[in-house]
Each structure stands twice: as structure tokens, then as C-alpha cells.
């Protein structure tokens, strides 16, 4: 599998009146060709900031990429000029936003909005672009595409609007599609349709997808690999099976235990205590330590490096250090290990 995108040691800060907010603190990951990488984490963990940095959509007035590189196609995206970036955005890498109500222009017909990137990036004539736009509308499953082409966003339902946004994102057959919570604003039944559509289209046009969400059910449905973010860092990354059936980081344990599955019958749900870290003054040591019942002394002093669990699975927790005491993970995690025979004997 070849890497299509590589993010190395990314550090991003926002300058605010209160001081410097270190939103991203050393993020490393790569995206393989044709795969779906899900990024999960709570609000403020830095998932959206990371992807906005890839698209170079962060406001220049108050944000700063302090360090690191984003390698795509041999180029470092952090070094490109705005003009060069315009040639990539929407063509090579495109994005689907969370809220289809606000990401479409209400004063433009849907057709025009789909034609826009086609005309801009592919130098097509207007009539050819129109043909392509209608094709795209059909591709994303909108019936009566010719008539729908002339309509405005307010004439579409939420799920249909998200399909239009997907059509725009796919207009130039991008190599990478970034989906920032594309189904959070939708109903479960519509969500299932959109997820099916995205998986189907991925097979057809062979794009790689970065999928941001906080819904672990959605992750299990779409992802090949999963990165878990906390406090501006990736604290665990691995294949979807490794993260769901053999998680290593106490935060991942907490996330997985706090979601009731349909047969949870316990009296009380596991709740991660406390609240997310203040990135204005990031804590010394592991950012999760104050909320971590498994925290050791070293967690408060030194940030853990990424420990290797398998070739594809890495986690940043001192518990994986050879000298660390063996701890018993929460019951829900043990139950999950037993569900998957491969991890049972560990």
C-alpha cells in the first residue's frame, strides 16, 4: 500500500487575547491509497484543526503552523503559496463539511455550484460541465437530476443537500476526500444511506477518505484505520479491529466503555471523569493524566512516546512501557477482547 498523504510532527497554535492556544501538539499520521482513516476524539481535541490545516483553511490572521510538514504528492502543503494551493483544493483534495444547511450557497442553483469546480479545475466548456454535473447528481443518487440541477438548496432535504455537497466534493475525482462529521446533522436512516453512498463511491473512483466523527458506531461502519485524538495529539492509532477489540490507551478504553451498545444492562455507564484539558496551558506530562484512573507518577511528569503494539498499531501511554505494572482494563474492554479471538491471549 502506498502512502498518499503524510503528516509529520504538526504543531499548530492559535493566538488569542488570552494567550497562545496550542491546538495541535505534534501530530503524526499517514493516509494509504484507497483507505478510510477515521479520526475520533471529543470537541476541542484537534480533529477539525488538523484537517483544516491539510486544506490550508485555517484563518491566517490568528493561526500559525509552528512546526511540521504535510506531504502530499511530494509537495509540502504548508509551504505552498495561496495560488498553488488553489490548484489542489477542490481538485486533488476536497472536503465535505458537517452542516449541509450552511455549506451550500443559498443564492446559487445546485447545478451551478457543482459546475463551479469543474469549470475552474478542468477547463471544461459550460455545456460539458453541465453534462458532468448532471452525471454527478445521478451518481450520488438524486432522482430527476435534470430538474434538480436547476433548483436551489432550500428545495432539498438535509440528506439530499449532503448528497449535493458530496457531488461537489467529487466533481474533480479528488485523490483525497476529507469528511468532517458529514452525517452528524442527519437522522440515523439518512446517515446510513450517506455512509453507504460514500463507501460505494470510494470503490468506484478509488479515493482515500479521512473521516472525522465522534460517533464510534459510524467509525466501526466506515473505517479501515482509526486515529484517536486527545488534547491536540494522536494518542492511539491502528486498524479498526485493533482499536475496537484491543485498545491500549486508557482514554480509548474510556471512550469505548462510555458508549452503551444495545446489550449494555449495567446499572451505571462508565463516564470519563472531569473535563477536557485546557490547551492554553497544556498540562505537563500526559494531557489525559488528570482524568485517568490508571495514571502513574510518570504520566504527570513526562509525555509518553508512541509505543508499538503491532506493525499497524501504536499507542501513547506509559502503560505499554516494559517496566509498567500490568493493569486490568475496564470490563467492557475485556469483553471486547474476548469477542475477537486474535487478541484473546494477550
Amino acid at each position: 500500500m502506498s502512502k498518499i498523504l503524510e503528516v509529520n510532527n504538526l504543531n499548530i497554535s492559535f493566538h488569542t487575547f488570552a494567550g497562545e492556544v496550542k491546538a495541535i501538539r505534534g501530530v503524526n499520521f499517514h493516509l494509504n491509497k484507497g483507505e478510510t482513516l477515521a479520526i475520533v476524539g471529543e470537541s476541542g481535541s484537534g480533529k477539525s484543526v488538523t484537517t483544516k490545516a491539510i486544506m490550508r483553511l485555517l484563518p491566517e490572521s490568528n493561526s500559525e503552523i509552528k512546526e511540521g510538514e504535510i506531504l502530499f504528492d511530494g509537495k509540502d502543503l504548508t509551504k505552498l503559496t495561496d495560488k498553488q494551493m488553489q490548484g489542489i483544493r477542490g481538485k486533488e483534495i476536497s472536503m465535505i463539511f458537517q452542516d449541509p444547511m450552511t455549506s451550500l450557497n443559498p443564492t446559487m442553483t445546485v447545478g451551478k455550484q457543482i459546475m463551479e469546480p469543474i469549470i475552474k479545475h478542468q477547463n471544461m466548456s459550460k455545456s460539458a460541465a453541465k453534462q458532468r454535473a448532471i452525471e454527478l447528481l445521478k451518481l450520488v443518487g438524486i432522482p430527476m437530476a435534470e430538474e434538480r440541477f436547476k433548483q436551489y438548496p432550500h428545495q432539498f432535504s438535509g440528506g439530499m443537500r449532503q448528497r449535493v455537497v458530496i457531488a461537489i466534493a467529487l466533481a474533480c475525482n479528488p485523490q483525497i476526500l476529507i469528511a468532517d462529521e458529514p452525517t452528524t446533522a442527519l437522522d440515523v436512516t439518512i446517515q446510513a444511506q450517506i455512509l453507504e453512498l460514500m463507501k460505494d463511491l470510494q470503490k468506484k473512483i478509488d479515493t482515500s477518505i479521512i473521516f472525522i466523527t465522534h460517533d464510534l458506531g459510524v467509525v466501526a461502519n466506515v473505517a479501515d484505520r482509526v486515529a484517536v485524538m486527545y488534547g491536540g495529539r494522536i494518542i492511539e492509532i491502528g486498524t479498526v479491529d485493533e482499536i475496537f477489540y484491543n485498545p491500549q490507551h486508557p482514554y480509548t478504553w474510556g471512550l469505548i466503555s462510555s458508549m452503551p451498545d444495545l446489550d449494555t444492562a449495567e446499572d451505571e455507564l462508565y463516564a470519563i471523569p472531569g473535563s477536557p484539558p485546557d490547551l492554553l496551558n497544556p498540562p505537563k506530562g500526559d494531557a489525559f493524566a488528570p482524568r485517568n484512573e490508571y495514571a502513574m507518577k510518570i504520566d504527570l511528569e513526562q509525555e509518553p512516546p508512541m509505543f508499538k503494539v503491532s506493525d499497524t498499531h501504536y499507542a501513547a501511554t506509559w502503560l505499554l512501557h516494559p517496566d509498567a505494572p500490568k493493569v486490568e482494563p475496564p470490563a467492557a474492554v475485556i469483553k471486547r477482547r474476548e469477542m475477537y479471538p486474535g487478541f484473546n491471549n494477550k
Partner: protein
Amino acid sequence: METKKKLLEIRNLKQYFNIGKPNEVRAVDGISFDIYEGETLGLVGESGCGKSTTGRTIIRLYDATDGEVLYDGVNVHGKKSKEELKSFNHKMQMIFQDPYASLNPRMKVSDVIAEGMDIHGLAKTKEERMNKVYELLETVGLNKEHANRYPHEFSGGQRQRIGIARALAVDPDFIIADEPISALDVSIQAQVVNLMKKLQKEKGLTYLFIAHDLSMVKYISDRIGVMYFGKLVELAPAEELYNNPKHPYTQSLLSAIPLPDPISERSRKRKTYDPKMHNYQADETVELREVSPGHFVLCSEKEFAQYKK
């Protein structure tokens, strides 16, 4: 079940908007159900199915178009004196979906919480009022110092706790929670749900829990009602509804929830629901029928025979 007392009876409740105009909306179209004392009834369905309208109509934020809501045997709707209304508001409270929009940004937390007590005259002196506020803050897991702050100083989860404290301030018996956790992060959702469960045990509260996150609803509810286009299509004990859904819409809804379990996700088969599939004839009466004890399904006579098998 039989020994349980009915706290709330909803009889053929209807809530139409824009009546008589071309854009008439039948948001709630003749639904009936009971809520027993001390239970949690979950109400689920897609957006626009009328679940929030049902909650809001029960608590009389809207005047019902038709039907009645009997609380302890007394109708909530219809002409009421100020005194009667006050007594309903005293017993019924609501927790809203959006913890950012439901707290007045210009009021201190202590005033937000105590507003209901002031209206109902529950605190005789200033000191008593503040002591009650402190007590409530501690009940919901915040502390005294928070009383003098303003809502913008709190995170989403903390604000929802303030919303819960406000609802508890008048010592209600029945709380309508309209998507209380939808706007919160996963790790915070569990905290709020645990808090609601704890309070229910301590104070013997009855909840109507409206949500679209079905796994959380199943976890918190004793019974669950499923709504589709203003109608209640199925009502059953939580366990029964998930293990043995009868109505095709319920089946399609359940088949659409992604579970945090990659193995089962890979073999997921989604069912689609098309209301035309029932093919109801004009002379058939479609109503809620009891297919097994406590399990009601909206169906025709013919379907009823099938479901009963």
C-alpha cells in the same frame, strides 16, 4: 405493570399547525399512551416525526388541537385558572436540548435555577433561596462557587447540569427531557445520563426521554415508543422492542443504527421502509393493537393477525 399507577394519560392527542391553510402540518396526529409513575418512557423517531412537539404539547408549551393529557386524572389542557396552571407547572418540568440556547445569558446561574422557586414562592427568605440553590448545584455535581457565574462560563455538559438543576428546583414529579444529551460529547453524555438515572432513583422521578440516539434510549428507558410522521407506530418494553420489533418502520430504524462493533458492521443489512408497503384499504381501521402483553403496534386487522404469530 398492573400494580403501577398511571401518572400521565395521553388520549388521542393532536397538534396541528397552520390549521386550514394549504401548509397545514399534522405534527402530532392522534397519539395515545400512558406513562407510569417512576418509569422512563423513551420516545424516538427521525427529525420532524413529532416527538419534540409531543413533549412540548404535553407540558402545554403548545395548546393541543385535540385530545387530552390527563395528569393524575386531571386534564392539563383546556381553560385553566392561573392557580391550576401553577400547580401543573410545579409538577412538570422540562430539560431542553440545547444547553447553549436554553439558559438566559444575562442571568446568573443562581437566578436561572431559582426563578421557578420565586414564581411558586418556595423560598421564604433570601437565605433559604440561596441554600436551596447551593443544594441543587451539589445534587447535579457542580459546586457552590458556580452560583454567581453566568452561563457562558460553563461547558456544554456543565450547562446541561444547570438545566437539570433548574428543572429540579420546584421539586417536580415528572420531567420531560427533550434530547438532553444530543448536543454533548460522547464522554460527557455518559455523565449526564448517569446523573439523570441517579436522580430518578433518589427522588422517584418519572421521565419522558425524547431522543434519536437509540442505544442511549434503550439504556435509560423502561419502555420505548417509536414515532413516524405524527403517529406512534410501536410501543413496547425496551428489551422487547429491540429484540422483537414488529412494525416495519421500527425494524428499519433499528437496522440503521451503526454499532461500535466492526465485525457486526461488516455484515450489516439495512432494511428500508416505505409506508406504501402496508397497502391499507379504505375500509380497514389502522390503530394501535396489543400484540403481546405491553407491546403495541400500529396495524390493521390483517397485519395484527400476522404480528401475533
